[in-house]
């Protein structure tokens, strides 16, 4: 198991992503951050906190569970559903930024787009990701990337966050390096 992103790097990456989001959307008034549970939800909250500190205004953020839209439901035992919380202004006509920890095949994000379509019609949808590990199986890319980490398919990328795991770190496991 090797450490590829220590805590200070994660913090710097989230700060940079926050600035990029503000720059691209010309401020925070029209943005809504939606994190994909479980770790994406915590990352969305952190980015919302950083942005509201920079701009001195509250930022709309929530969570979006995608379980019911997954395309691999039939291949695994039933999964527990996670909470979906949509902030007060909804998603209609907002610039929604989906937040997740790792971008891999892109299937989670496809499911998230479907789940989002059920709630409303955002003005635009953007994607922020902590780690892009490659191996896309769908035509999906991230707008904001914490770090590109080339991996082999047999490796796993493990993201630990203080809220859940007691420390911030990204590790790579296996694959016979």
């Amino acid at each position, binding site marked *: 198991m090797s450490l590829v992103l220590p805590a200070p790097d994660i913090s710097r990456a989230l700060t940079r992503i926050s600035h990029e989001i503000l720059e691209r959307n010309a401020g925070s008034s029209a943005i809504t951050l939606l994190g994909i549970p479980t770790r994406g939800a915590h990352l969305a909250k952190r980015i919302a906190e950083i942005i509201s500190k920079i701009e001195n205004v509250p930022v709309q953020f929530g969570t979006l*569970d995608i379980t*019911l*839209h997954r395309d691999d*439901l*039939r*291949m*695994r*035992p*039933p*999964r*527990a*559903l*996670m*909470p*979906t919380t949509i902030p007060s202004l909804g998603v209609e006509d907002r610039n929604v930024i989906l937040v997740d920890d790792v971008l891999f095949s892109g299937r989670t994000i496809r499911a998230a787009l*479907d789940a989002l*379509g*059920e*709630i*409303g019609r955002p003005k635009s949808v953007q994607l922020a990701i902590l780690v892009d590990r490659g191996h896309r199986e769908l035509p999906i890319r991230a707008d904001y990337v914490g770090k590109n980490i080339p991996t082999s398919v047999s490796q796993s990328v493990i993201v630990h966050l203080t809220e859940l795991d007691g420390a911030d770190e990204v590790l790579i496991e296996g694959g016979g390096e």
Partner: protein
Amino acid sequence: MKHLLSINDLSKVEAISILDTAQELARVSDGPMKKLPTLRGRTIVNLFAEDSTRTRISFEAAAKRLSADVINFSAKGSSISKGESLKDTAQTLQAMGADAVIIRHGASGAAHRLADSNWMSGSVINAGDGTHEHPSQALLDAFTIRKHLSKSGNDLAGLRVAIVGDVLHSRVARSNVLLLSKLGAQVILVAPPTLLPVGVESWPCEISYDLDAVISSVDAVMMLRIQVERMTELFFPNAREYSRYFGLNNDRIKALKPDAIVMHPGPMNRGLEITADAADGARSVIVEQVANGVSIRMAILYLLLAGSQEIGATI
């Protein structure tokens, strides 16, 4: 979990996971798009050999919100009324590719028979078998009580629930006693001795013959329907006397705790076990029970059918 036949088959953790799943799915029913793609391509058969409004429509709505195909099948108007056996009916459904059968039947144990036989390979969901069990009703009742009254937001610890009336003929009562006590509630059955089944002393609940003695101490009161169609002998002298001793009326509503709720699984005999005032009053959550029923049944269908069963799935 492949089938849902009895509350006894559920652990406390499994029961709570069904309630939690229903809570998330309720959001779909409240949203603008009441449809999810989750069970697309699955076929669900509603096999109702006994009459039903709520349960059948509720399962149908739940299945359709999850995009499953639903085939409705009732005894009237099918070959069951020509005397076709359950076995032949089941094999027909299997041949048509049913992934799940929701069965209501007048014979206690019908759902078990269907699940334990090799007549069909799909999931079996018990939607009421004779006077035995009605697990999805108990789950929706627990869900409703939890939503209004739970102290932990998780189980029903510390709550007292009275189940009043025709316990003898009620599968709802049996399933509720098992489930509510499993979730930590104290259950009290209130009925005339003639309407309590043999062996009720061994159920995990208290028993009382006096509604007025119990009413002020409970957090929820669940009225049961007097099941005239199952009554083959005289169980109480007359309807007026039953109403006076065991009916829920305005005086008894006033004796309830301030935040107590009034429940009824439906269909109601207004004026017999419950007055119209009590059924339509501010304490009544009877209509909400129906809405919650759809969420609970979506959760059951999701947990039984969405994942693969082949690799030892559990919930």
